[in-house]
């Protein structure tokens, strides 16, 4: 909708002018006659409406048929098209008036035609067409019972695992996978070699390469028990928390700024990132993480630490990119709600709920009502609150708990600040009082330059701040003899007046400005030296003269014969009494004023020093909140997703297809997010555990058991091993939603440790490796590739970084052409990538080229691209070249023996030992020049850009 109703009405008037009269203005037939319908209604319907609203239409618009009387009564998505007898209540009328919608879309019908329709409906909508003419098709109702039969909506089932299908079967993973391989008659690859397995494990669990020491330890004892020991060590390492937090950040569309139209800084997003790192490191149960992320701000907490994590976790809901400058705020609100529902749907349930905003989901059993049952929950939640500038929304923040000492320090600081503020205020009042001298100086009759008659050229200025009115004029020190300015005043009483002129004094001014005063005693001529003033701050007295009421007092300042600038600001006439009082002020108060000013100055300094030692402000979480209870409400259906096209109200609730139980929240505690969190984490929810277990599986095994990890709906793929997915999910729920045991189980399986070797015969049977007869060859994440280089160079700083965006203003990049946000690129800072700022719109070109997740989207499975840009950034970017140089130095200085150097190069870059082939290449490459730093630099740089470096075999 582009037009307000008022604007649309105006347009209607304009339309008449352009469209002209389409039918004669006067109707001869009565409006309740069949003739009226036949002559005035039916032709219009046929010509303008049937293209989209008849059974012959290619696609029926809004499910509305207008080719039968029933069709009109029953209506479409927006309800009945007409209400016989009530034209104003009929959607058809408001649509052709271009009010509720704009029909027909090609152009508005002439007003006469619109009026005909209104009159026809008002008269009862006589319609001779047989009501049974065409079969009326209502909107297709979704059959939820039928929908529940789809595998993903069925309850989790525990099937008996096949026993010992293969020799190496140990545990349910190998039992299920083994059985499928036996069924397909494929014998799986054997175990991968030891160092490949170790490399795989290290990157999968920590995102970092195995150290040379670990490689050597492992080679000395590549036993299963040592494997488990290494696994447990890695699971317990801080690096594990960082690496797995990053996986979830892809889902959470994590970024440190808003991007989009107003790239506002997310000053507090890092707290959420660190919550994830802590949670994964501590193996926080995932159901708890879900509850915290959906409704943490509403949860009760037993400690400050818990309250802190609860609040920070709910930042999850806030991280989406938003069109903050959208001026239609109700639309923006619905867009935000939509983004939240879509994210929750895909993140936790693998369902694409966004589709149901405008119509029943076309592929999955999600009716529009279910979408708006969820929308009611999020419309009752505040995500955006207030504006950072006109029309630009900003988000809600909630103070975080802090220590008593901190609170006391803040209280003390604020008390001191308040008392200083008060003192400053009172001192400023003193200054004002003292400055009342100025007021006093403004007594008498004042004529400003703006009211004076000017001859010649006078330039406006307000450069020197002390002046009367809005500024003063000067002669620009030119056209001498041609400029004059005449001040005229009416004198209230006959008598003697002191005449002063105001000007800003200065060295460039004329020393003798000629002035003529027309007095009761005739013309008087004086000159004044404008280089200085006789009465501070800006007055020069011309003397005392007699004036009469009967004739105006005139003062003319001229630039005849002057050298230097002539300034004219105002002329003042002071009676005897006024002269006395103002002189008192002028002589008496400068000291008082100076004193008062000095006091203000000193107090302000005190304030400055207080502020410089201020305690940190109370930390704030970028957290949502429930609306006040009177604003919490169910949502109506927005027909076709249109913010102003309203349908019926839907009680807040969940997706009915997930389980047969109650999907409506009976008595919501607030917005309903707590209930939503409970519903999602219910052990009988068919999707949530499956979706999450599948994600973990994908990160370790290369593909999900359901390959479309974000889509478990009918447009997604079916699970390759449904029993295994269910068995792992059931175990996951039973053991308390802990992630580490699940990971441990997977990486200790035989399937995980298989070689990724190509095999023509097996490929012929299972080309996509859906049965996991081998390990998938996988791309390292952009983060791991970068950190692997930093590790090779020996410069990776493992310490975490916190408040990355602290120095940033409200907008991380302005909406002009002079943005400096690209300078935030911290790619060269040798910390783990998770601790680098992620500014939307300014992602590091290197990370983007290596397929880092785009924070504008929820990314369950990162794409792996092979584009030239990737090769260019790896081979030619200065930072990669620099890391390669440092690595090569490290290798060269490690030993004087070429063999040892080559060995170290392979162990620190590719995490394996060089083979004969590698040695031959090296021998040839370094022929005769084994100590050249340039050769070594070249060698390492090529290793960094090689496929082996960035792939997990």
């Amino acid at each position, binding site marked *: 909708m582009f037009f307000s109703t008022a604007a649309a009405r105006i347009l209607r008037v304009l339309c008449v002018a352009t469209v002209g009269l389409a039918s004669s203005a006067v109707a001869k037939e009565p409006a309740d006659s069949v003739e009226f319908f036949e002559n005035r209604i039916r032709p219009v319907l046929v010509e303008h409406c049937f293209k989209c609203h008849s059974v012959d239409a290619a696609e029926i618009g809004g499910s509305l048929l207008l080719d039968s009387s029933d069709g009109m009564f029953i209506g479409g998505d927006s309800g009945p098209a007409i209400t016989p007898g009530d034209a104003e209540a009929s959607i058809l009328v408001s649509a052709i008036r271009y009010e509720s919608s704009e029909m027909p879309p090609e152009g508005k019908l002439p007003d006469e035609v619109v009026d005909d329709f209104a009159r026809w409906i008002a008269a009862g909508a006589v319609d001779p067409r047989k009501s049974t003419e065409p079969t009326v098709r209502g909107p297709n109702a979704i059959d939820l019972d039928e929908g529940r039969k789809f595998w993903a909506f069925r309850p989790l089932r525990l099937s008996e695992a096949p026993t010992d299908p293969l020799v190496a079967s140990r545990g349910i993973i190998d039992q299920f996978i083994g059985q499928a391989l036996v069924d397909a008659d494929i014998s799986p690859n054997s175990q991968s070699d030891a160092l490949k397995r170790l490399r795989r494990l290290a990157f999968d669990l920590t995102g970092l390469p195995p150290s040379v020491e670990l490689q050597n330890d492992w080679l000395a004892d590549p036993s299963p028990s040592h494997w488990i020991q290494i696994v447990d060590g890695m699971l317990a390492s801080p690096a594990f928390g960082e690496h797995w937090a990053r996986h979830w950040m892809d889902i959470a569309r994590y970024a440190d700024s808003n991007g989009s139209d107003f790239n506002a800084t997310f000053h507090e997003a890092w707290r959420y990132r660190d919550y994830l790192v802590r949670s994964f490191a501590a193996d926080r149960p995932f159901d708890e993480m879900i509850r915290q992320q959906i409704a943490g701000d509403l949860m009760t907490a037993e400690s400050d630490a818990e309250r802190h994590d609860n609040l920070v976790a709910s930042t999850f809901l806030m991280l989406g990119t938003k069109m903050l400058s959208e001026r239609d705020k109700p639309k923006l609100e619905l867009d935000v709600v939509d983004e939240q529902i879509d994210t929750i749907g895909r993140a936790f349930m693998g369902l694409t709920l966004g589709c149901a905003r405008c119509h029943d989901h076309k592929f999955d059993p999600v009716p529009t009502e279910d979408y708006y049952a969820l929308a009611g929950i999020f419309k009752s939640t505040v995500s955006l609150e207030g504006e950072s500038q006109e029309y630009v929304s900003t988000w809600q923040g909630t103070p975080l708990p802090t220590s008593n000492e901190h609170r006391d320090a803040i209280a003390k600081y604020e008390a001191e600040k308040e008392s200083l503020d008060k003192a400053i205020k009172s001192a400023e009042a003193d200054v004002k009082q003292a400055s009342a001298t100025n007021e006093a100086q403004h007594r008498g009759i004042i004529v400003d330059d703006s009211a004076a008659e000017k001859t010649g050229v006078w330039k406006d200025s307000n450069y020197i701040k002390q002046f009367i009115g809005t500024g003063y004029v000067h002669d620009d020190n030119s056209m001498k003899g041609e400029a004059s300015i005449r001040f005229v005043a009416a004198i209230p009483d006959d008598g003697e007046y002191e005449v002063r002129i105001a000007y800003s004094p200065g060295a460039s001014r004329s020393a003798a400005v000629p002035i003529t005063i027309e007095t009761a005693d005739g013309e008087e001529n004086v000159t004044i030296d404008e280089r200085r003033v006789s009465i501070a701050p800006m007055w020069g007295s011309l003397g005392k003269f007699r004036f009469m009421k009967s004739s105006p007092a005139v003062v003319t300042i001229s630039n005849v014969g002057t050298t230097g600038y002539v300034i004219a600001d105002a002329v003042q006439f002071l009676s005897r009494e006024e002269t006395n009082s103002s002189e008192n002020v002028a002589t008496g108060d400068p000291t008082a004023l100076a004193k008062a000013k000095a006091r203000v100055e000193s107090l302000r300094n005190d304030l400055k020093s207080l502020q410089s030692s201020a305690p940190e402000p109370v930390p704030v979480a970028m957290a949502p909140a429930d609306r006040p209870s009177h604003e919490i409400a169910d949502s109506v259906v927005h027909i076709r997703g249109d913010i102003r096209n309203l349908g019926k109200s839907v009680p807040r609730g969940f997706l009915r297809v997930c389980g047969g139980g109650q999907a409506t929240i009976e008595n919501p505690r607030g917005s309903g997010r707590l209930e939503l969190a409970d519903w999602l984490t219910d052990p009988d929810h068919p999707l949530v555990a499956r979706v999450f277990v599948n994600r973990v599986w994908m990160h370790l095994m290369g593909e999900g058991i359901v390959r479309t990890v974000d889509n478990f709906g009918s447009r997604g793929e079916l699970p390759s091993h449904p029993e295994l997915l269910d068995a792992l999910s059931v175990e996951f729920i039973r053991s308390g939603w802990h992630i580490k045991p699940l990971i441990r189980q997977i990486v200790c399986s035989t399937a995980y440790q298989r070689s990724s070797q190509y095999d023509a015969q097996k490929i012929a049977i299972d080309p996509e490796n859906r049965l996991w007869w081998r390990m998938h060859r996988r791309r390292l994440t952009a983060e791991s590739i970068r950190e692997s280089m930093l590790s090779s160079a020996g410069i990776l700083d493992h310490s975490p970084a916190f408040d990355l965006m602290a120095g940033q203003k409200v907008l991380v990049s302005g909406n002009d052409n002079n943005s400096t946000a690209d300078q935030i690129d911290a790619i060269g800072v040798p910390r783990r990538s998770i601790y680098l700022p992620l500014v939307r*719109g300014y992602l590091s070109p290197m990370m983007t080229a290596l397929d880092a997740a785009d924070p504008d989207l929820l990314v369950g499975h990162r794409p792996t691209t092979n584009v*030239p840009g990737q090769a260019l950034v790896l081979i030619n970017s200065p930072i990669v070249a620099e890391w390669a140089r440092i690595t090569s130095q490290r290798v060269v200085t490690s030993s004087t023996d070429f063999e040892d150097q080559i060995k170290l190069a392979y162990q620190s870059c590719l995490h394996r030992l060089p083979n004969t082939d590698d040695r031959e290449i090296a021998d040839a490459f370094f022929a005769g020049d084994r100590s050249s730093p340039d050769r070594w630099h070249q060698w390492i740089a090529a290793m960094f850009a090689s*496929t082996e470096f960035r792939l997990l075999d």
Partner: protein
Amino acid sequence: MTSLNFDGHFSRRGFGLTSSMTLGSLAVSGFTPWSTAPASESNGSPATLRVPPRAKRVIFLFMHGGPSHVDTFDYKPLLARDDGKPLPFALPPNLNASPTLLNGPWNFSQRGQSGLWVSDLLPHMAERADSLCVIRSMHTKGQSHGQAVGMVNTGSDNLVRPSVGAWVSYALGSGHPDLPAHVAIGPATAHGGPRNYGAAFLPAMHQATAIGSNGNFGKGIIPYLDGIGESASIQERFDLVRVFNERHLIRAGLDNEIQGAIDAVDLASRMRSAAPEVFDVERETQATRTAYGIHEKATRSFGESCLLARRLAESGVRFITISSGQVWDQHGNLIEGHGKNALATDRPIAALMDDLKQRGMWDDTLIVWGGEFGRTPVVQGKNGRDHNPQGFTMVLAGGAVKGGFAYGETDDYGYYALRDRVHMHDLHATMLHILGIDHERLTYPYAGRDFRLTDVHGRVVQEVLS
């Protein structure tokens, strides 16, 4: 098995690979990063060339900020007559402008054989009025820049969607084996930044290769095309990478990913040879450079951008956006601001038109000129205009569209598009149509459904086609 032969450099092939083991024999199903073949039925895009193409490429001259249509192409005599009077109908909501009409200082006159009205603000484009197809009834979504910029570049005012150029790249591939299909020259960092030339959920290769930023031509080169150090040394590094990768492939057996990476390194290497020549606007004659205004400060950056666009177009690039930078947003200082922007862009654009004609490229190039919206006919502040998505002008040019032709009308003052309204979705549908793409059939599956550039909208504006 190895017989090594390095004469200081690696020879690119034959190294370590016996004749029975050449890569040719290992080659897996072809994966060319910038396919020159159009998207086919099999990869989710039900063939696109269902309509006969009328052009091979688009050059989009994006006047970011929103130039005023009532001061350029949409002549309104009543606006001149009623200057200073109140607007006789209601303003749209959420607007700051006061409803007082403001007539701009630029005179309109009828130009060329066609008599098309163009103002004096753009004298060079005006001279070529007979080659312009002016759509005066544009309307779009978004009262603020962010939304409207999203609309013109991606067809969405609020959601993250592929850019028009990405769709074209996806549909048609590149016309050059070693160059990208989609290039953005001087793209703004504001209002969505890379999103406006991004691929969103389309494969990453369809994102534009960005040259310069914020209306600045910069060095006019592809990032990281040249490394530090000698060219010979960089080539040697490319060759060594290739050796490593081929070894890896041999050890792994067949592997699409490794093969794809090998191809990508190859292509990058070829780009290093091909691109510098194409990107080098210095190679043009002095006369050409002068025509584009490269010798003058005011026109240099946009002139270089237009000249590069022509060279890219000539080489087979499909979609080139030249951004003016976010400069046309004259809420105040209309005369000065629009004057400056017109000065910077008008002459280079005219030179581009002439150049395309001279080189026989006019008929198969579609030029699109315009902003994310127009500006209000009513005044904001003393001498500015606010945003106007309700009605504005975009200009098409090239063999596929009628020259010296105006389509559609706004109201008497140029506020609302009234007659023959063309929505931004319609313009996109028309652009695709001209390239031979059915906008309803060019789809990509994502998040459970098929997406289109035009969502569920879009009408091909047949009336403007020649």
